[in-house]
């Protein structure tokens, strides 16, 4: 059965830019057997997508060029085929699904026609036969009511549905190999679980091989048979899943595991990989990971490591070279990371109340027609109450579209709430206007999700950080202000020289540090962190989380941490509130909510998070369908349409708050009436 389908041998892909060329993929080799899932794991910019594009020969010409190696599909070298023959391979033998379902579908064609195009091209079916083949495919990827969906357009489908349509298109040619490039990164956890399940099922059913490209260790754990880790254009480790998760070999792989946040690590800083992934446009002579590796010794900085094959895998590291590792100085082995222990913090600090939100509502009018008549409201935030203590972290968890970002902005009065109160240290912010509000603005600040759009590209770092101080009149003396900027930069771990540069000169993680410095400049008491790490790589995420935790300890900040990532919640938060369709459905201490979830939605969310361990496959509570529209929420409990434990009463009215033990509150009839 173990028959090699695709064999990539010493693949090298070169990119030419203004500043000269570089090898984006450098000597990459791997085999994929028929019917297996091979995962290519790596952080952004490590060359994993370029590898997949090279296999498909879809590199952006003429900037990208394959300069060496072979890609053998059933023994035929794809790199030697003429373009005409290659076109038959694409779709028929190898199909691909992309990360962004929003932009991969043509918005002016109905989804049925788009799938039919592939069917007609590759299976040479016509008319009625083609249509029934498309309906079969839609059925196969779990799209309900395929007859109706056939004629719908991409904008009428949700993100998860679009990704299913993409999968259906990929399957239409009945390929032997499916390349899935971050297939679920743009999706919510519950939808991600659905799509991953679907992929696994289809693969078993069709005996199709899959090349899964991802940065998510959890997805790898749940899906892959074998794993290859890429770093800076090279494969540094390759192993079967079980042994990879049991005992990662390469120092980089080990670090990746250690830098994952999780609840059990909350009393100590996360292990971080210092620095960032090196830019590829410089010559490498030594090990590419050496400067970030704490196990590195002299040899690592002088010569490039060879590939050491071991059983079913291998590793590219001097540690596994008998001759070289014998030369490794002993004291280096003892150089363990200096981890400062956090004092155990059982109860949240009793600093008193900082922020109290009462029945906050944000409704957006839906306007139609010539005279902009209001025909309805989007209930983005619909009666949320929340309390944040001084020095505490409250996490707000929910899927995209549940209103959590709107809630954050409403607290900051960036969006004016429709009703309710936001009381910060005794002042109701919703009543403040103009100058009075402006004077309070130094007390609460925000950190945004996307570090690339959150800074004005035309301003220097210094100007960016100073802006708040200048506006709020905190530091009027220019010299003192400059000094404060220097302090802030040091505080967030950036060199003082950064002040004179522009944002585009920094990496994502560094930009996020600048954003934190900007917010801290006005000495806020409350920081609203709107998914501050979700655009970052795992290793950088750990750095930022550590920084946030350090700052909280030093400055006594309170955080409202908005996220969809439950492992981050476990690591960072004291309290957690789960939001569904504009309302908080469960609220309590982190340990309570994550270990003993009460609401069925929380249960489903938790079960959908892919676990990072060797036997990652475990029982997932599958939620049917997508998040309903907040413009027309379902009657009764908003969750009843997707709830596996819905009762008749759920359809009638919204459940009241039920207090469970230890301040754990939930809105569900499962607990209320009992």
């Amino acid at each position: 059965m173990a028959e090699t389908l695709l064999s990539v041998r010493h693949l090298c892909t070169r990119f030419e830019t203004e500043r000269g060329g570089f090898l984006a993929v450098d000597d990459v080799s791997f085999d994929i057997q028929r019917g297996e899932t091979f995962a290519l794991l790596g952080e952004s910019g490590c060359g994993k997508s370029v590898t997949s594009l090279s296999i498909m020969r879809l590199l952006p010409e003429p900037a990208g060029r394959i300069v060496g190696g072979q890609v053998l599909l059933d023994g035929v070298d794809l790199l030697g085929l003429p373009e005409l023959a290659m076109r038959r391979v694409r779709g028929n033998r190898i199909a691909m699904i992309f990360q962004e379902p929003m932009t991969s579908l043509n918005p002016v064609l109905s989804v049925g026609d788009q799938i039919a195009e592939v069917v007609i091209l590759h299976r040479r079916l016509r008319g009625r036969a083609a249509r029934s083949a498309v309906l079969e495919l839609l059925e196969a990827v779990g799209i309900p009511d395929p007859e109706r969906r056939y004629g719908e357009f991409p904008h009428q489908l949700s993100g998860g549905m679009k990704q299913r349509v993409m999968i259906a298109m990929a399957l239409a040619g009945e390929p032997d190999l499916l390349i899935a490039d971050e297939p679920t990164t743009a999706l919510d956890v519950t939808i991600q679980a659905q799509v991953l399940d679907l992929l696994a099922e289809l693969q078993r059913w069709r005996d199709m091989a899959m090349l899964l490209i991802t940065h998510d260790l959890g997805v790898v754990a749940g899906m892959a048979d074998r794993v290859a880790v890429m770093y800076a254009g090279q494969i540094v480790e390759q192993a079967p899943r079980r042994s990879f998760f049991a005992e990662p070999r390469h120092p980089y792989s080990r670090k990746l595991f250690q830098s994952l946040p999780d609840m059990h690590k909350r009393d100590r800083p996360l292990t971080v990989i210092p620095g960032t992934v090196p830019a590829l446009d410089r010559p490498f002579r030594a090990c590419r990971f050496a400067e970030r590796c704490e196990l590195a010794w002299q040899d690592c900085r002088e010569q490039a490591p060879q590939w050491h094959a071991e059983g079913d895998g291998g590793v590219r590291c001097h540690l596994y070279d008998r001759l070289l590792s014998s030369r490794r100085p002993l004291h280096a082995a003892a150089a363990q990371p200096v981890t400062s222990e956090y004092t155990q913090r059982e109860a949240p600090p009793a600093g008193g109340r900082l922020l109290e939100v009462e029945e906050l509502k944000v409704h957006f009018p839906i306007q139609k027609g010539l005279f902009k008549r209001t025909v309805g409201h989007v209930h983005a935030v619909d009666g949320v109450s929340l309390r944040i203590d001084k020095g505490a972290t409250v996490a707000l968890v929910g899927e995209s579209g549940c209103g959590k970002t709107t809630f954050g902005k409403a607290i900051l009065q960036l969006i004016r709430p429709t009703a309710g109160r936001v009381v910060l240290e005794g002042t109701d912010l919703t009543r403040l206007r103009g100058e009075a509000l402006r004077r309070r603005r130094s007390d609460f600040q925000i950190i945004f999700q996307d570090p690339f759009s959150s800074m004005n590209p035309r301003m220097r770092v210094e100007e960016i950080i100073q802006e708040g101080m200048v506006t709020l009149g905190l530091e009027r003396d220019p010299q003192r202000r400059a000094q404060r900027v220097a302090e802030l930069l040091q505080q967030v771990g950036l060199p003082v020289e950064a002040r004179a540069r522009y944002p585009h000169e920094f990496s994502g993680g560094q930009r996020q540090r600048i954003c934190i410095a900007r917010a801290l400049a006005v000495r806020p008491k409350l920081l609203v962190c709107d998914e501050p790490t979700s655009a970052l790589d795992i290793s950088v995420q750990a750095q930022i989380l550590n920084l946030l935790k350090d700052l909280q300890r030093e400055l006594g900040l309170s955080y409202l941490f908005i996220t969809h990532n439950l492992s981050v919640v476990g690591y960072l938060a004291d309290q957690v509130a789960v939001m569904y369709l504009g309302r908080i459905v469960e609220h309590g201490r982190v340990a309570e909510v994550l270990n003993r979830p009460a609401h069925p939605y929380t249960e489903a969310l938790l079960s959908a998070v892919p676990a990072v361990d060797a036997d990652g496959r475990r029982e997932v509570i599958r939620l049917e369908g997508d998040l309903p529209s907040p413009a027309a929420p379902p009657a009764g409990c908003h969750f009843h349409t997707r709830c596996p434990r819905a009762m008749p009463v759920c359809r009638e009215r919204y459940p009241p708050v039920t207090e469970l033990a230890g301040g754990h509150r939930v809105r569900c009839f499962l607990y209320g009436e009992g």
Partner: protein
Amino acid sequence: MTTVLEEIVGPDTLAYWRGLKPVLLWTDVLVFLLVGVLVICIWYARRREHLRAPWRQVFARPLAMAAAVVMSCFVVVGLLDSVHFREPLQPQGGQDGGQQQEVFHAVEVLSLLDLLLRPLKEQVEKTYSAPFATHLYAKETLELPDGTRVRDYPRLVYGGAHLEDPSERTADVLQRSLAGLATGLGWWLLFALLWVALLAYRHHRPFGSQLRQVLAGRTVLPWRVMLGVLALVFMAVAWAVELAPLYHIFGTDKVGQDVFYQTLKSVRTALVIGTLTTLVMLPFAVLLGLMAGYFRGWVDDVIQYLYTTLNSIPGVLLIASAVLMLQVYIDTHPEMFETAAERADMRLLFLCIILGVTSWTTLCRLLRGEALKLHGVDYVQAAVAFGVPHFRILSRHLLPNVMHIVLITVVLDFSGLVLAEAILSYVGVGVDPSMHSWGNMINGARLEMAREPMVWWSLLAAFVFMFLLVLAANLLADAVRDAFDPRTRDAAAGRES
């Protein structure tokens, strides 16, 4: 100080310059204001890498570099023509000696360009003559020395007057052309060597290797192209300097004025229309566009209604009525204008303003869309979270990030406005008829196209110059758009590499 100057230029010249009375026309003020602003902008942009980089990309394109050289030649002519003054009249009744006499100045307003082109300006023939002609284009009754009268083409007063025998003309023209071209080449060689030496000094390279770099076209900016185009410019200028005083190289018009002189004088009009109009329109478009996009709500509604209304009135109608009203006003208030030039200038300025008022809507609409997009961007939200006042957000966060759109529109509009002037003058609502402009030249030549034999040179001269200017502006605009538009920037960068 004065004595030094006197020694250099001679006492007579100095006295002449002292006697001049400077005249500051409105458009002159605005033109020099614009130049000043540009100089400040360049100085500002030089120190900021994110502004320098796209400009470097613009000039790294050979075609754009060539266009820029051509454009700057036009600009030099236009600027020379923007320094105005009046000459003193010779005091009548002889020198009284010692007695201070009031000096009167001529009514005619001259510019530096007029001084340079004085021979062309003053060598006026009777009527039409073809380029390089020695005889008039119309027959006249001539009286021969022996008293007989014949009807023939008379010799020109100035054109080819140095020739004993008109049949020597072709040989003379050829010979002088060669001499002119050779002189131009010589000057160019001198300039090119100096330029390369300057480059070598700046890059700390030996002269020889710098020269090889330039010749092989391996420099970052395409100096080879620049020098090549300059060679053509130098040769053309030297050729004109050699020939224009002796012949009417573009012929003469109906009243015998030199067409070449008219064409050069028209450059300023075109440049003023192309640049001042945008200057007039920018504040409207930028402020209203950004405000509409940023504040939204009723502000947006009002501004949108304003520009959609303005946009639906035919532009020519608006311009024609405004210009005619202005003309009536000028005619009924002659005491307000000291000279004819000031009157013509006022009309030019108002033409710029009215063109600007009718053409700001496009840019305004573009900016509104961009500001709508930027309003939701995180860094604007962050500024709001700091309580930054609205107009600070508009000027610090929105404006710098839409500047590329403004720049692209301004450069693209320039050529359109130059052409618009020609069309409006043709319709009769353009610049003052006494003002030199390509539109007026075309308008004047249009009737003569029908006559036999045809008078074609006015039209052709205006056409060639206008074509050169507009083509250069368009090529430059293309490069500017590619370098500044974020959507094409990456693609362009890929191609340049």
